[in-house]
């Protein structure tokens, strides 16, 4: 699950990380009030940042500076409601604009290849790390955290020196270790600070000081671990999820809407992707990716069918179940139940093999479902059915 910058910063703060103060505003007035507080605190300018779950906010005009509370209100008004890559801006972050001396990049990410937490740092901050990786990969410093003990002090020091942060060693070590602590505390699979920056500030005694701070934050959370962090569910951005995606998630299904006409219901992610691939290969277009998961029971199958049929473009459905932990007869019962409830009639091609397939076959035959023996045959029949109804419509 992706979360917004302001929420990510809250998680970092909870781990004691240096994050400059901010406020979230949902209206022009809230932005003005927030900005006034920062100006009263001595800020010369404030920054207003769109809170949306897409990259490239700055380029899209979603990050702007303002020199007065009124200007902040104006800027916030322009940004709120803006469409950035299909996402509507509903909140902005307001904070004192930092005087940046130098920008760095630092992240902790789950490295699948090594099965460890990988720290990546670069002295080229503030730009997309994918670009840095393409243009000069040697500029990215990589260190793996110890699998049992986490990021050790010497590893963090080594990383800091390699990034050229020797002058801010203590802060850099604390931040690097804080990234790993944040990952572990909230089961994040990515914690990214870009930019991590040396900023110039006025100290309490009025003298100028330089400090290392997290100016931006990006955190993604492991969906498998959300159940043990009940508070984090509230950070889900409702705009990041279409209503049907939400219904699917709550039913324990993995669903991704696509543009085609053939609804797919499959057990297992790999087989679901293969089913989509074969529909396409047979000349059709899949309407969705839908994995009912392992051990799905009848009620889950019925929920899956409702979600597929909610898409008005769907004019044929392909059900492909290879039973292992999932039992074919349970799925067949779910299909029969779902068909009894469904509001519109769409041709359905059903293929059920594997565990309890014989029992499923009896049920499907009694209920007069159209069946297929192989996946290739099922895909071909579904494409044919989709074309047939398409021509009739």
């Amino acid at each position, binding site marked *: 699950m992706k979360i917004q910058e302001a929420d990510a910063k809250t998680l970092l703060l909870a781990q004691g990380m240096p994050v400059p103060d901010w406020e979230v505003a949902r209206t022009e007035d809230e932005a003005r009030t927030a900005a006034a507080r920062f100006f009263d605190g001595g800020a010369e300018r404030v920054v207003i940042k769109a809170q949306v779950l897409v990259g490239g906010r700055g380029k899209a005009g979603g990050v702007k500076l303002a020199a007065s509370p009124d200007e902040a209100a104006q800027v916030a008004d322009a940004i709120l409601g803006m469409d950035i890559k299909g996402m509507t801006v509903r909140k902005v972050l307001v904070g004192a604009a930092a005087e940046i001396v130098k920008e760095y990049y630092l992240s902790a990410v789950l490295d*699948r290849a090594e099965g460890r937490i990988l720290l990546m740092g670069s002295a080229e901050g503030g730009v997309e790390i994918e670009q840095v990786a393409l243009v000069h990969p040697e500029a990215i410093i990589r260190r793996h955290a110890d699998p049992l003990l986490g990021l050790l002090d010497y590893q963090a020091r080594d990383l800091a020196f390699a990034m050229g942060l020797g002058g801010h060693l203590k802060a850099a070590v604390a931040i690097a270790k804080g990234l790993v602590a944040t990952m572990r505390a909230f089961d994040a699979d990515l914690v990214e600070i870009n930019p991590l920056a040396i900023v110039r500030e006025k100290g309490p005694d009025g003298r100028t000081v330089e400090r290392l701070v997290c100016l931006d934050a990006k955190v993604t959370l492991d969906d*498998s671990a959300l159940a043990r962090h009940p508070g984090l569910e509230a950070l889900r951005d409702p705009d990041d999820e279409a209503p049907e995606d939400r219904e699917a998630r709550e039913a324990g299904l993995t669903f991704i809407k696509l543009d085609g006409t053939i609804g797919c219901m499959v057990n297992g*992610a*790999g087989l*679901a992707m293969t089913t989509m691939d074969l529909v396409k290969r047979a000349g059709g277009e899949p309407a969705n990716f839908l994995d009912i998961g392992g051990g799905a029971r009848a009620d889950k199958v019925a929920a899956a069918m409702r979600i597929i049929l909610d898409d008005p473009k769907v004019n044929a459905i392909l059900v492909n179940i290879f039973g292992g932990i999932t039992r074919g007869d349970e799925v067949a019962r779910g299909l029969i139940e779902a068909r009894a409830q469904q509001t519109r009639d769409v041709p359905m091609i059903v293929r059920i093999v594997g565990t309890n397939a014989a029992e499923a076959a009896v049920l499907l035959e009694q209920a007069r479902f159209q069946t297929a023996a192989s996946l290739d045959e099922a895909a071909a029949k579904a494409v044919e059915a989709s074309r047939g109804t398409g021509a009739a419509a």
Partner: protein
Amino acid sequence: MSILVGRETRLVVQGITGREGEFHARAMREYGTQIVAGVTPGKGGQTALDGAVPVYDTVEEAVRDSGANTSCIFVPAAGAPDAVLEAAAAGIATIFCITEGIPALDMIPVVEMVRARGARLIGPNCPGATSPGRAKVGIIPGPIHREGRVGVVSRSGTLTYEAVQAMTDAGLGQSTCLGIGGDPVIGTTFLDALQLFAADEETDAIVLIGEIGGAAEETAAEWAAAHLADVPKVAFIAGRTAPEGKRMGHAGAIISGGAGTAASKVEALEAAGFRVAGSPTELPGLLRNAGYRG
């Protein structure tokens, strides 16, 4: 010989009294797997599978009393990492973790600890392994198999069954069919599996079933090019039509910025001498074209 499971397998099922554990333990036993013990803490002294299998409170007792050498775990996600560690500590050599939905960070120290104990973990979130005619551990349906000399390894669950069924339908039997699991942090990789097959005298050909995301297929392909040059090998990659940046169920199956795409995997596999199928049903034909005469 086969790999990982066989006639010498003496299985303990952790979570044998649960719904899934009981159902699949029964299927494994019917297939011919020697199930020597079950473990459910608090139910020690009872029996499972109609009195046929003694249930113990701990894996240690199960090993001591029954000589178990392999474990299959059906414990729910919250307790599964601990179940893996318990098995490793009790001296189990081969541990299959079927459980799905385990938080990825939980598995990092677990994989490390299992390795340090000299044991092997397969999974989590995997369907297990079958050595046809000998034993099956996990949830792969027994009847889809046929005895033979093709080694099958896959990251998926049900897609593995699809590929195995296609092989069996074409008369190509298998030495061992292994599902390594689709989670981000797993105990046994494609590379590990290929190394095991390479060392197995009864495996003469390889089927590799991959999917988009990560670079595990590419890594395995590189090794195969050098070490399995003369072995007929075929592959299938799921997710050719998956949209970029979307997570397709498996945590691993996410592609971004061209890395881990189906195209890059197909290219790496073909360069390593694999013939890559457009559908699982094409795998047997391609294997014959690659010179396999089994």
